[in-house]
């Protein structure tokens, strides 16, 4: 495995001990590659592995044979075959699941989460993004920024990735034209700003030809920046979790004998020091850190993400799922949380549904109190929603059976994240990122269930106010077109015929939008009425409903 430049190879050969000492200083960079079908993602990864010499001769032989047999690379070695692993994928020529790849240079060890670009695999992208520090978003130079590019960038930002490389690939097919590159960059920059992605690096490349992957492209002298690999080796990664508040979720209580009682866990953020005054949550009991124990000896302090065992000076009751923190920087403690959710299962997420959620080292029962909205992953528009389906992303409120100890995901990935587990199948159905503690009323209402449902709660659930849209008895065509349109947009609308006007008050009490075909002079009972004039269209009625605050 010659995966080092020549001078390093020489060092390995001459003085392996010196080389190993150097290796000790490496750190890990985890990154994600996201792209659409055919934009060359597998080729890029194969190229990174190959050009950084991570490919063995026996693998390379197999690759050449495979390339000759079945390749879309037109006679060249098809690097994508290095990474398209499963039989079922090789048959279809696509990637169907997150795959993890590894390579190292003299500066860093890299872990790549290789995620597929298919529409139906949003869940895989979210999975890969959950542990990544950086995302490479591949953009095909022939097509520019597509809705898929937006989708991938949105998911990356949602999952808290702070560094993005916008890699404009297949520059060879656009004549290595600087203007093409700059146009695409401008499009992307406008969009990235909206997502709050602050650190975006732009890079023109051809994964197939190797331009700007490991070595600087000779075909694009106008690009002054580093090639991709050099950028990945040197980009400073924000690891501000070391300086933030201490979060030590207790994972395992260690009692090897009567004299030792230790609390094992991974420091999620911050620093824990011997002698620190700490509080155990949720009990709130305080004690002092007596020892930080490891098999290699006691430590004075431990930082994230070290896995250690802590002993306390006092005999206080601490168990798995509790959290040790400093008294001056407490997390939120609440049963109700508002969170963004990526739903990953065919069974829809609906209000009132109950799941187990795993948050840190705790598994608790939680009820979905409300679904507020769904986010269109392609446009980032938000729409009222009553359920979340497979690959949907939305904002929800949950109420847990016991208090959760958490921070907002944006502040702390480790304590702001959770997963949904189905009680019957035990499957992982979704992933959540906490925004904030839920408003008190939502939390209480969901937990007790004894209070009547308020108009405000109906509004939250349905995404619209009750209203009657009154049309002339003959306007059936418009009425059904409107019903269809509102329904498709996630609202509850229904047409009421001329002789059924008496049903309107009931429907209004239920919070519906009633489209009423009324006889002239008929009395319609509804607190919000929109009277539709002749010549109106579906669009003009929707506009009016929005203006009147009926649609959320």
């Amino acid at each position, binding site marked *: *495995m010659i995966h*080092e430049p020549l001078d390093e*190879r020489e060092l*390995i050969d001459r003085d392996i001990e010196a*080389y*190993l000492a150097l290796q*000790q200083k490496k*750190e*890990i960079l985890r990154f994600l590659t996201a792209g659409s079908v055919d934009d060359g993602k597998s080729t890029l990864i194969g190229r990174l592995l190959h050009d950084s010499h991570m490919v*063995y*001769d*026996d*693998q390379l032989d197999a690759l050449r044979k495979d390339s000759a047999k079945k390749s879309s690379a037109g006679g060249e070695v098809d690097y994508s075959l290095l*990474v398209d*692993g*499963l*039989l*079922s994928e*090789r048959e279809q020529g696509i990637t*169907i*699941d997150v*795959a*993890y*790849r*590894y390579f*190292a240079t003299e500066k860093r*060890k890299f872990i790549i989460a*290789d995620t597929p670009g298919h529409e139906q695999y949003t*869940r*895989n992208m979210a*999975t890969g993004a959950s*542990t990544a520090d950086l995302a490479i978003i591949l953009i095909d130079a022939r097509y520019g920024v597509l809705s898929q590019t937006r989708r991938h960038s949105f998911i990356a930002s949602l999952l808290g990735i702070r560094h993005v490389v916008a890699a404009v690939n297949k520059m060879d097919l656009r004549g290595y034209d600087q203007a093409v590159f700059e146009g695409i960059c401008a499009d992307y920059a406008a969009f990235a700003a909206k997502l709050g992605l602050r650190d975006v690096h732009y890079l023109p490349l051809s994964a197939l030809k190797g331009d700007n992957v490991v070595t600087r492209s000779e075909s694009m002298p106008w690009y002054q920046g580093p090639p991709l690999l050099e950028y990945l080796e040197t980009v400073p990664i924000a690891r501000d979790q*070391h300086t933030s508040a201490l979060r030590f979720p207790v*994972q*395992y209580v*260690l009692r090897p004998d009567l004299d*030792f009682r230790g609390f*094992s*866990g*991974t420091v999620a953020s911050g620093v824990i020091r011997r002698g620190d005054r700490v509080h155990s949550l949720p009990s709130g009991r305080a004690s002092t850190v007596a020892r930080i*124990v*490891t*098999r290699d000896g006691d430590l004075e302090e431990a*930082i994230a*993400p*070290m*896995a250690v065992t802590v002993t306390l000076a006092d005999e206080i009751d601490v168990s798995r799922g509790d959290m040790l923190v400093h008294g001056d920087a407490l997390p939120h403690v609440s049963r109700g949380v508002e969170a963004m959710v990526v739903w*990953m299962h065919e069974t829809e997420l609906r209000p009132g549904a109950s799941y187990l959620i*795993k948050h*840190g*080292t705790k598994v608790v029962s939680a009820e979905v109190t409300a679904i507020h909205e769904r986010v269109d992953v392609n446009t980032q528009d938000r729409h009222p929603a009553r359920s979340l389906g497979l690959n949907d992303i939305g904002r929800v409120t949950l109420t847990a059976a016991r208090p959760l100890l958490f921070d907002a995901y944006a502040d702390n*990935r480790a304590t702001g*994240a*959770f*997963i949904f*587990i189905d009680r019957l199948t*035990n*499957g*992982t159905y979704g*992933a959540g990122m906490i925004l904030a503690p839920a408003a008190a009323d939502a939390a209480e209402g969901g937990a007790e269930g004894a209070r009547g449902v308020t108009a405000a709660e109906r509004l939250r659930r349905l995404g619209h106010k009750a209203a009657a849209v009154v049309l002339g008895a003959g306007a059936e065509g418009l009425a059904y077109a409107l019903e269809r349109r509102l329904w498709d947009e996630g609202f509850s609308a229904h047409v009421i015929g001329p002789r059924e006007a008496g049903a309107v008050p009931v429907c209004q009490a239920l919070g519906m939008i009633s489209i009423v075909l009324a006889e002239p002079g008929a009395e319609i009972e509804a607190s919000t009425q929109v009277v539709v004039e002749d010549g109106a269209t579906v669009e003009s009625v929707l506009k009016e409903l929005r203006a009147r605050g009926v649609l959320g």
Partner: protein
Amino acid sequence: MALTHLQQLEAESIHVIREVAAEFDNPVMLYSIGKDSAVMVRLAQKAFAPGKLPFPLLHVDTTWKFREMVTFRDAFCRENGFDLRVHTNREPEAAGMNPFDHDSQTYTTVMKTHGLVQALGKWGFDAAFGGARRDEEKSRAKERVYSFRDRLSQWDPKNQRPELWNLYNGRIHKGESIRVFPLSNWTELDVWQYIHLESIPIVPLYFAAVRPVVERDGALIMVDDDRMRLRPGEVPMQKRVRFRTLGCYPLTGAIESSAVTLPEIIREMLLTRNSERQGRMIDHDEKGSMETKKREGYF
């Protein structure tokens, strides 16, 4: 201050091991006696120090392991006070199954895969740690850290649970189990570096020595005992060899080498041009053979 890559890998693996010990009733750690197992066991010791391992070790013995492996296993477990369980699938053995008369695919399925499934059932283990790494083989690249197996211990690559952050879903129904891979994110180089750094004892077969071998189908096979069937014309030669991976001796190829220290092994690995699995005959039988084996319950 940031952790080095080995410190970070170590911490993540310890987290996984503790999580399984906390959430499962009856976990077991597969111990194959190889270098990856050696690292995994060390990580488990670190996870529960100053206490002992809260679970036993399991070795699925095909009876065709190198003699030095078995000697090492017994001494290692005795010295460390581990609860070692050994299981052998006796039925095929009684029926005369051996690595010479049967193709390596069938042999492995029966002796290792079936043997493992039998052992898990026999002791009722609900979680089994394995030392597999994602960098070993292409189909492993998609394996989860927690790999869910149904009642028949089968793996369905299209129906794996999403695995986000370090939030592992360990919920199973009765009779189901998971395989857990704490070394998922380690590479071969990481493993060797860690063994070096931590002075972890390993089987001497990893170091070069003069050993009796025959050349067979392009590989150097060690004549480890008198059960080794020589083909016409094969005469054992004394060669200075070592092994990059260890398994059943008739199926494990040696490489010619003079590396007798860990740094020399690492140096040789860094300068070599072939992957470690090339020495394993069982992986080459058919395309995607690892995927096929895993679907049937192999690690």
